[in-house]
């Protein structure tokens, strides 16, 4: 009696396994291949076959010069529609689309060498259509009883899913990066407890003056910012996990090494980013450079203050005109007229200055506006003569008021009180930067020195030269009065003389 599973009863007793592929192996007509009937197989082939049949890892053996294929259940899944026809076929014919690749495998393996491929990309037709797959492939020779390589055994791990997943992740990352790069706001990612820059977008680069900060801790990358409390804010977010938002916060940035600190204003949020176990690993920094907006707001506030200042000053100036005119007035009607005329003169000077944003005034334009009320309608009773030049706002108002007082006097008592009288207003700047303004009356009645020191004479002879740190003279010539003001050009430009 021989036991059923004794060598004599079942030639495939050495497989000792009853899986789907094992059954196919047992039924396969091995006599038609170069392996020959199983009874003729060398022990090495049997052992190797049993070994791979039992392995849960996809394995295939390529035996002999032709590479006759014997594989396991796991490999049969990988082989797709090629299985079961693939079993017992020669590898170059079984996988014709990768015949060259396998030709090399056979040559190297049968020469006793090993081969290893990581994520090897191949196009296989295992499902009836071309399919791109990736595999980890490890080949090693199988030795026969004489110690010579008789076949090649391959561990075949398909990595297609992982490779595609990694590729998707990479594409996702690139998509995020391009979003980052095109974002109109600044963005950066800092990682770890020392807040190391791992990502910055072009807007962030612009904000920090295009410094190379990737991989550097904030403390080293932006030392001047660290001193301004931003590092403490990052620490706070990192330790508490609470997001922080700030608006119109001032930050001083050193754009160039040893360069000056640039003032910027920023709106921003520090957003904690947690890893899988929930601890804060990164901080996402996102915000906008709002410097222009903040400056515009400050400028507007300044303008409002400035406007308020001008209004209050104008009220005080009007108060001055009214009180001083009334102080010397004898007739209420005349006083009212004088007050109105002086306020109009002040207003005309303001108009000229307003056109120039109160920066300076063209002297000719200013003088024309001042003398307009005294000009006869039919002829030029007042001539202006002088070079084009500009005067500062304070000097402009004073000169306009002085011309008004001179004009008023000329109409009442001087050259403009009679037909045929004329006035020449002449100005010049000498080589020594001395400014001269003259008011020359001719053709009027003989004027003698008045004895009252009224508003007009006080203004032109005392306060005006005081203000301009110059000199004022009034000359009573037989032909008419001549007023002469001299001052340094700096003084009439409102700069310190």
């Amino acid at each position, binding site marked *: 009696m021989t036991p059923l599973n004794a060598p004599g009863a079942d030639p495939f007793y050495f497989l000792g396994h009853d899986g789907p592929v094992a059954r196919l192996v047992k039924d396969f007509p091995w006599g038609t291949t170069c392996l020959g009937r199983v009874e003729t197989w060398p022990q090495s082939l049997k052992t190797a076959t049993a070994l791979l049949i039992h392995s849960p890892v996809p394995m295939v053996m390529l035996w002999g010069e032709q590479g006759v294929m014997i594989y396991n259940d796991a490999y049969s899944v990988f082989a797709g529609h090629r299985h079961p026809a693939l079993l017992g076929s020669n590898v170059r014919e079984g996988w014709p689309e990768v015949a060259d690749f396998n030709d090399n495998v056979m040559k190297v393996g049968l020469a006793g060498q090993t081969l290893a491929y990581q994520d090897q990309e191949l196009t296989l037709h295992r499902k009836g259509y071309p399919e791109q797959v990736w595999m980890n492939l490890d080949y090693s020779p199988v030795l026969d009883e004489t110690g010579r390589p008789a076949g090649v055994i391959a561990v075949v791990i398909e990595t297609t899913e992982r490779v595609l997943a990694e590729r998707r992740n990479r594409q996702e990352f690139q998509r995020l990066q391009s979003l980052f790069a095109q974002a109109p706001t600044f963005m950066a990612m800092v990682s770890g407890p020392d807040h190391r820059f791992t990502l910055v977008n072009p807007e962030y680069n612009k904000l920090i003056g295009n410094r190379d900060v990737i991989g550097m801790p904030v403390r080293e990358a932006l030392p001047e910012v660290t001193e301004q409390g931003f590092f403490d804010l990052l620490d706070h977010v990192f330790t508490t996990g609470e997001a922080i938002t700030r608006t119109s916060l001032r930050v001083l940035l050193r754009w160039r090494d040893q360069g000056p600190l640039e003032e910027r204003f920023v709106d921003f949020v520090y957003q904690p980013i947690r890893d899988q176990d929930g601890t804060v690993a990164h901080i996402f920094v996102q915000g906008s450079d709002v410097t222009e907006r903040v400056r515009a707001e400050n400028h507007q506030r300044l303008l409002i203050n400035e406007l308020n200042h001008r209004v209050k000053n104008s009220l*005080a100036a009007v108060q001055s005109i009214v009180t001083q005119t009334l102080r010397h007035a004898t007739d209420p009607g005349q006083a009212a007229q004088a007050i109105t005329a002086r306020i109009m003169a002040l207003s005309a000077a303001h108009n000229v200055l307003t056109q120039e944003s109160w920066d300076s005034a063209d002297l000719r334009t200013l003088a024309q506006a001042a003398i307009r009320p005294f000009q006869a309608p039919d002829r030029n009773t007042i001539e202006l003569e002088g070079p084009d030049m500009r005067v500062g706002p*304070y000097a402009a108002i004073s000169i306009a008021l002085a011309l008004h007082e001179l004009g008023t006097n000329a109409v009442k008592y001087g050259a403009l009180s009679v037909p045929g009288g004329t006035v020449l207003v002449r100005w010049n700047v000498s080589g020594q930067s001395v400014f001269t303004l003259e008011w020359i009356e001719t053709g009027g009645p003989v004027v003698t020195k008045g004895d009252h020191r009224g508003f007009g004479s006080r203004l032109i002879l005392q306060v005006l030269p*005081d203000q301009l740190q110059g000199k004022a003279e009034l000359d009573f010539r037989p032909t008419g009065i001549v007023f002469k003001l001299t001052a340094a050009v700096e003084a009439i430009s409102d700069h310190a003389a």
Partner: protein
Amino acid sequence: MARILIVEDEILIAMLLEDIVTDLGHDPVGPMMRLQTALDAAEREEIDFAILDINLAGQQSFPVADRLMRRGIPFIFASGYGRAGLTEAYSAVPVLQKPYDAAQIARAIPPHSAGQSR
């Protein structure tokens, strides 16, 4: 009668302030309309009290204020801005908003201030 330094760059307001000070029976020093002349006066003149416009042709009169403080001379600011733009150092200095009247100036001048600096 006190000697009162007037620092004011606007010609009409300077004239008004000079009148007010004179009418109150005091002796005006100035008006000084530029920072440099005001500084010289604050340094050299015998002054009992001062009225300083804050803005002098684009420059601020704070250096004048500092000199007066060093000399222990009381003063007030007169400004169209009110207190806006005044730093902590001058928080104790009264500010008169333009326009002002003689009564406000009279109240601002400390009683018996005449002759203190002499």
